[in-house]
């Protein structure tokens, strides 16, 4: 395996073959947990972990799994990993796990996992499968991060605890203290989960207008 291929495994899912905007997998959780950047980052990290290790496990087992029961085997591997992640979150950051509620458990039915296992891990060696898992997890995380930061910035005026818009913005930096940033009002729509669906639609629009190969013909 050459270096170019390794890099492609990691970089392809970030843009040209993004799991959310191009393959249309794993949309469910991408929309619901992107209210702020922290949630988006945690969810992206959790999904990356699970995709990477489930790809690795299934790829190691691929010659021993009878094809008739492979779905059940895949589900058990995924469910095991998701249970680990969910218990880990509950142990180390209970508030966050309460906030993400059922969506951590729902990583099991995130189509990215099953899709990558079926499409890649069942037919490839462990190392490329592991990298493919990481790449797809990061591609998913990237979209979550974009949507999360847009929603948090325009919805609450702050990003990771630092205020950009509104009364509080830049109150200790003299030359930015008044004017434009203070006059900005928070956008109430962005706080609602429904905003993420519009943002995702617009991201898809931009991506497809840049890359004509992705345009739907039907």
């Amino acid at each position, binding site marked *: 395996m050459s270096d170019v291929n390794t890099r492609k495994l990691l970089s392809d899912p970030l843009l040209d073959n993004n799991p959310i905007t191009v393959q249309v997998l794993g949309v469910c959780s991408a929309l619901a947990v992107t209210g702020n950047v922290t949630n988006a980052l945690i969810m992206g990290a959790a999904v990356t972990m699970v995709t990477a290790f489930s790809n690795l496990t299934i790829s190691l087992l691929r010659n021993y799994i009878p094809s008739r029961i492979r779905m059940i085997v895949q589900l058990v591997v995924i469910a095991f990993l998701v249970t680990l992640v969910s218990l880990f979150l509950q142990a180390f950051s209970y508030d966050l796990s309460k906030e993400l509620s059922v969506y951590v458990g729902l990583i*099991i*039915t995130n189509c990215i996992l099953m899709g990558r296992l079926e499409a890649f891990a069942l037919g490839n060696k462990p190392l490329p499968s592991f990298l493919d898992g990481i790449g797809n997890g990061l591609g998913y995380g990237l979209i979550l991060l974009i949507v999360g930061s847009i929603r948090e910035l325009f919805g609450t005026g702050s990003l990771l605890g630092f205020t950009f818009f509104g009364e509080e913005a830049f109150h200790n930096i003299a030359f930015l203290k008044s004017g434009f940033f203070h006059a900005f009002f928070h956008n109430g729509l962005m706080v609602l989960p429904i905003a993420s669906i519009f943002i995702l639609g617009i991201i*898809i*629009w931009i991506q*497809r*207008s840049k890359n004509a190969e992705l345009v739907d013909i039907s």
Partner: protein
Amino acid sequence: MGDLINIFVKSAFVENMVLIYFLGMCSYLAVSKTVKTAVGLGAAVIFVLAITAPINWIIRENLLVEGALGWIHPSFETLNFEFLGLIIYIGVIAALVQLVEMVIEKFSPALYMSLGIFLPLITVNCSILGGTLFMITKEYNLAQSAVFGIGSGFGFFLAIVALAAIREKLRYSNVPAPLRGLGMAFIITGLMGLAFMGLMGIKL
């Protein structure tokens, strides 16, 4: 009784699985190109949700929660198997979908043909597992969880058939090329979601 009707209306309209919680989006976007297939998938989801929610409730109450195994021996009173929940629920869902598929194939080949590939796909539809997990966080009893399952399934049916009908009409309109298909489906879903959010103020 009134309580059950409330849960049905709430799960179907006010807390619609697809448009408010965004669960089951993958199959919702992929299978909504024509009304006929959308009706097939919607019916299959109602069917499976109506069965899995109460069965997972029975399994959880009788095997998993703390003290549930006390009838075997008093020393089992302290056992709590809830950490195994996710694996067991998804196993039950996979097994039930397989079972439902075989039963339908045996007794109604016509329905089986029309549902086709959608039945096995339902295993990884987020709204099915989501139904079970929401039923647990909302602490419903057996009858309530059955009604919740049917209601959520009906909500999914409603949303997917509506989107498919709109997309069928959209084929005749002049949408900008990069927005065609998926992009437009997202934006329409957003608009439908906004409309459904208007129901949120209803207290039941």
